């Protein structure tokens, strides 16, 4: 693993029981870099993230995170400054905004300072701390998810399809925060929304049936290359 690589996957395979959903995926992310992993449904994107985070067993290959050989459990990852925002049921709907944010940290002692930091990006949260997370609008909930991920001041952010179902204005805001306010964190963004992904990440990779079929930098030809892969 290279010196400044915060995440490295070599020939990683994983899946559910006997089904291999992710086959031989290799990719690397350097400190501070942002990579978008794109692909249609069922192509393995969420499976890949879950494997990196230790929620699914590694069936082949190797993962290195922040200098340590994986797989690491979610708790160990949090200790290392890795933040994960899952796609399914990512919030505790019945807990308050404040309690949802508290769960991002390992100790309540650091809460005050961490809160100040994220409220700067999402001021509306300051007024809603006592509200139940389920009463926020869809867009506000996504922003809360992002805020929670940033509470840790993470070194690596793993985000699964945060753009789903969002209005353009909210998308822009979230893209802005991800671009500029992640304080040097590396970012692995799993997405289906191509434009959103390219507005945030400077590199991209397309996952098709569990394998990386194409990847590259965000240059002039990127968009049409990716569309070709994603469409019917």
């Amino acid at each position: 693993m290279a010196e400044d690589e915060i995440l490295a996957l070599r020939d990683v395979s994983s899946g559910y029981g006997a089904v291999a959903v992710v086959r031989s995926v290799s990719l690397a992310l350097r400190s501070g870099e942002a990579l978008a992993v794109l692909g249609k449904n069922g192509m393995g994107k969420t499976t890949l993230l879950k494997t990196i985070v230790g929620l699914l067993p590694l069936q082949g290959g190797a993962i290195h995170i922040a200098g340590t050989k994986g797989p690491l459990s979610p708790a160990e990852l949090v200790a290392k400054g890795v933040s994960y925002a899952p796609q399914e049921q990512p919030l505790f709907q019945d807990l308050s905004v404040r309690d949802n944010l508290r769960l991002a940290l390992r100790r309540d002692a650091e809460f005050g300072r961490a809160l100040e930091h994220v409220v700067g990006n999402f001021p509306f949260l300051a007024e809603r701390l006592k509200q139940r997370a389920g009463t926020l609008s869809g867009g506000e909930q996504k922003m809360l998810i992002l805020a929670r991920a940033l509470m840790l001041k993470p070194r690596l952010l793993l985000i699964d399809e945060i753009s789903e179902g969002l209005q353009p204005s909210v998308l822009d805001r979230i893209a802005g925060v991800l671009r500029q306010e992640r304080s040097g964190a590396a970012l692995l963004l799993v997405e289906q929304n191509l434009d959103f992904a390219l507005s945030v990440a400077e590199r991209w990779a397309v996952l098709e049936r569990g394998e990386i079929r194409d990847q590259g930098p965000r240059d002039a030809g990127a968009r049409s290359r990716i569309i070709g892969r994603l469409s019917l």
Partner: protein
Amino acid sequence: MLENALKASRLAPALFAGAALLVWFAPLFLDPFAANVLTRSLIYAALAATVDLLWGYTGILTFAQGAFFGVGAYATALTMTSFGATPAAILGALALGVLVPAALGALVGWISFHQNSTPLYASVISLVFPIVVTQLVYSGGAWTGSSSGLVGYDVLPLELEGFFRLAGLLLVAVVAAAWIFVRSDAGKLLVAVRDNETRCAYLDIDPKRIQILLTTALAAVAGLAGFVFAHASGVVAPENVGFVFGTELVIWVALGGRASLFGPVFAAIGIDYLSANLSGDLPFLWQLVLGGVFVVTIILLPDGAAGLARRAFGAARPRRVRLQTAETRAQTLASGPLLEVSGLARGFGSLAVLRDIDLRVSAGELLSIVGPNGAGKTTFMRCVSDGLEPFRGVIKIAGVSIAGKPPDRVAALGVGRKFQVASIFEGLTVVDCLRLARASREAPSALRASPSLSLPLACVEVLELTGLSGLLTSPARLLSHGMKQALELAMVLALEPSLILLDEPTAGLTKSERTLIGDVLKQLTAQAGCAVILVEHDFDFVREISSRIVVLHQGRLVLDGTVEDVTNSETVRAIYAGAGHG
């Protein structure tokens, strides 16, 4: 090992006859104390067999069998107390001893097994029932004998040997009947209900009805055991009704081995007999050891002693079965569309998952539903196959509205649903899964395991194309993922549905497997007058086989057309690029 021998050869009738003979002559060799204790142990063993049927085979953890037994015993004792040992009274006691528990069994079953009930709830009810009965007995005053119980009533004019034989024959009869049933085709229904209630429902088999019927029938058997007990022991007390006794039965089944019949029977006899003999010296230590062994067994040896025996001697090999092609039933071709959806809407709280969907699908169509994640595709499938889903709008299958109909009633209308994660019966063999899938069309025998199985042509083709026809006797849980998907598809086809719903049928399949499935689906719609609706992400597959594609996005039906229409559509391209949000 015994089970092995019985299954492998046709010795069964001989062995049961042998057991009956053993029971007949045993009293000649036993001292009175042993005979007395064993009479009780044999009756308890019959009860343990019923608990095994309920828990081991059907997955219903019940503590109530002891109570049904006690009710039968009390009914008998009360009748004998009131009327003496006249033939009429004895017959009356027999009738009451069986029918009263049966009625209570039906009641308990009705309370325990309903649409939203869970296994935990059923267990809890089975615990509450004995407690209520116990309290009723206590509050019955002189009539029920309260805490002292009923004694001194007239009994059947049999001596100690006679009662021993009666108890023994009861046990042999119960175990023989149970054994014949679980080996038969219909007996597999128990395991199916235990393994996968949902799949049963979607095969037009009502799992709740089976659970209620079984509870009622076995309550009757327990009552019969109670009748024999009341006569043999001459004493009926609250301990015979209580839930402590009910839990003892469960413990014996756990130790003997769930779903083995013989394990629980021998465990019951052994433990009860030992308890009676040790009681004088070390009552508490014995209970302590038993409790400890029970806990250890649950944690480390969930299959009990029978499980150990199976591992030592190997499980029995299932018999071969021949496949036949069935005559397809006369297709009453619906003149109208097979599926009519009007104004379908479904929300979860404030989140609208489906909005205003209109769709008509006729026989011969192969429709694919595509759309990004969260578009509502699986919710749509669920609404169309389960009338209990709280949707708004109208859904009709072959002209009949499905609102309020549970999945088995919808399946009866001709809907077959295949799930994304293969939903089969892991505890059964391939052929048994298929036979049960066919159960709603051809009732399985309750007495024998048929050596042949008739399946519709499409089903047989899938089995042959995928190679499953060579794996008929293989346990379903050992199949590869692709094979499980194929088996589930075959099971759905065995239903002979007119509307087939498939949720991601190609997930995890190899290229060749996908082509095979695609060919079968195309054939079905072309020749058998079915309609197929599938949810898929694999667009090559969709393009190859679909006659029509429907695009869902954020709960709305955005496009409905031919393969060319949809592939070339700008709207669709935009949706996948992320531009189309609403």
